[in-house]
């Protein structure tokens, strides 16, 4: 080999081949590529934390506006039956939590629809595939966003904003001499936050097959991922309705979206009275029933199948 550019004169530092494992200079933990892949998702999809932050900001801002009339409302509240006071006090705190949960749901939907599509659209899949990261690691690092990262963000943001709201109302009420003691005594904020933690967990488990399906579609469809994700299900439901005048499939879809509420909570007290959704007491949680419901496990089974299919599919994927 005669090289005109004098490369020959550079002695090769090490021209012997070792087996790939033996010569690896850095011993890398298997979880490290996963950790960095999740961080990469957060770099690319900043809406994962910006949208919940914005939702929290909106809830707080609205609450600050309500502070103007807070002392007045507290005086009105004091005149009410003590049994009704906690539910009324809980409302703004519960609404903040609900807004955050809904925001995370929407972010999760659109994130999942883009997760395996964006990298093909912008051709960057060729860069990601040039690195020693398996398709399994890549797909799992994307699936964990709606299944774990978003619920954690929702919970932490809810706790922080609820505590801020409580603190500020206390200051306002102390200054205006209007019932800070009632607020602290009657608002079961810690219990609400435990229920919220249970709620976001239940929701993530129940919606897991939805996110997994969206991920699969995002890896499969060349374009119009949203339509591919939604229309087949609607089509089946409408077909069944027209052809057989039944709506089992439609009910199944409805159950997958909203069924967690009836599945994981006792929505009626033992006396038969409906539970106020703003203030669900710990006693109304039904984790045993939820964990033993076939709907949960069937859903998780489908989620696993969809994710496995997405992993397998990514091997064949190239830029679109």
């Amino acid at each position, binding site marked *: *080999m005669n090289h*005109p550019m004098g490369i020959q004169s550079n002695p090769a530092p090490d021209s*012997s081949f070792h087996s790939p494992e033996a010569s690896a200079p850095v011993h890398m933990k298997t979880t*490290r590529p996963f950790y960095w892949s999740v961080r*990469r998702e957060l770099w690319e999809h900043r809406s994962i934390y910006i949208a919940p932050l914005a939702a929290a900001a909106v809830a707080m801002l609205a609450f600050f506006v309500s502070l103007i009339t807070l002392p007045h409302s507290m005086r009105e509240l004091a005149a009410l039956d003590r049994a009704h006071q906690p539910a009324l006090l809980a409302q703004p705190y519960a609404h903040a939590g609900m807004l955050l949960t809904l925001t995370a749901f929407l972010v999760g939907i659109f994130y999942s629809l883009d997760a395996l599509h964006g990298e093909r659209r912008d051709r960057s*899949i*060729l860069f990601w595939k*040039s690195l020693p990261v398996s398709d399994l690691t890549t797909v799992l690092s994307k699936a964990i966003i709606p299944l774990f990262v978003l619920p954690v963000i929702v919970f932490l943001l809810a706790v922080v904003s609820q505590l801020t709201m409580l603190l500020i109302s206390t200051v306002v009420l102390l200054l205006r001499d209007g019932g800070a003691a009632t607020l602290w005594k009657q608002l079961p904020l810690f219990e609400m936050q435990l229920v919220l933690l249970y709620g976001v967990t239940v929701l993530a488990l129940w919606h897991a097959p939805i996110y997994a399906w969206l991920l699969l579609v995002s890896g499969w469809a060349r374009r119009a991922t949203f339509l591919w994700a939604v229309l087949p299900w609607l089509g089946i439901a409408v077909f069944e309705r027209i052809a057989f005048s039944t709506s089992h499939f439609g009910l199944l879809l409805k159950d997958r979206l909203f069924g967690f509420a009836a599945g994981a909570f006792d929505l009626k007290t033992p006396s038969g009275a409906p539970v106020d959704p703003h203030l669900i007491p710990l006693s109304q949680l039904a984790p045993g029933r939820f964990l033993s419901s076939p709907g949960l496990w069937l859903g998780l089974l489908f989620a696993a199948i969809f994710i496995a299919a997405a992993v397998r599919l990514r091997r064949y994927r190239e830029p679109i």
Partner: protein
Amino acid sequence: MIVIEASGLRKVFGATVALDSVNLRIEEGRILGLIGPNGAGKSTALNAILGLTQYQGELNVIGRDPWRERDQLMRDVCFIADVAVLPRWLRVSQALDYVAGVHPRFDRGKAESFLAKTAIMPASKVRELSKGMVTQLHLAVVMAIDAKLLVLDEPTIGLDILYRKQFYDSLLNDYFDRSRTIVVTTHQVEEVQHVLTDLMFINGGRIVLDCSMEEFESRYMEVMVNPEHVAAAQALKPIHERKVMGRNILLFDHSDRKQLAALGEVRMPSIADVFVALMGTANSNRAQQPRGAAR
């Protein structure tokens, strides 16, 4: 050490045969240019080597099956698949963070010192960089990886001549040593001629020529024939003939240099000229491969 070994490598897309029983063997320390017209099967061959596409036949890259072990293989193989595959949202610093996070053979300091020689800022996003700078960034990342095989698929397409020159210069001066192997495809044949140690022409999914540059230089001769010797020269069966400014230039394969020197001025042809000659033959008469080709 054999870095890439394929036998009977075949890939069919519908009715199109992209690779037709390709056999190849690439040894450590070579810089191989894979040259072929559009649709010749170059990218398919590279994709098979990189584990990006399924194939029939046997293929072994650094002791691994690329299709089944892509992620493991990528510890030892790097590739730049044309320009602009770095995502536009990525920051330069994030690119380094990520590769450092997932690649056990990445030397971040090395990448940073390559980047320090360019105008690229660590806080810049890829979308803010020019096409040439994106390639510089990608090359800086790749050169900081201690890989055994580097695959470049049209790495300089769309770049101006300064960036192209710089690209190959840094590759040779800062990266290549004899323990590494580089496979490059390009249409800018003139620019890689002095870089290559080996040459492979591919056409219609088949390897039309496979030789080292030394072999190429001794094997192919171009003669600018003196007008009075044209008939005599044509009798020696040139593989190609063209006319430049009224002079006949004949290309010979495996001919006697002394005999040719009597007919006119003998010189080494460019890769591009031999390419045109062989592709012309291959395209007009695919069944009959040129001598000594398609091992």
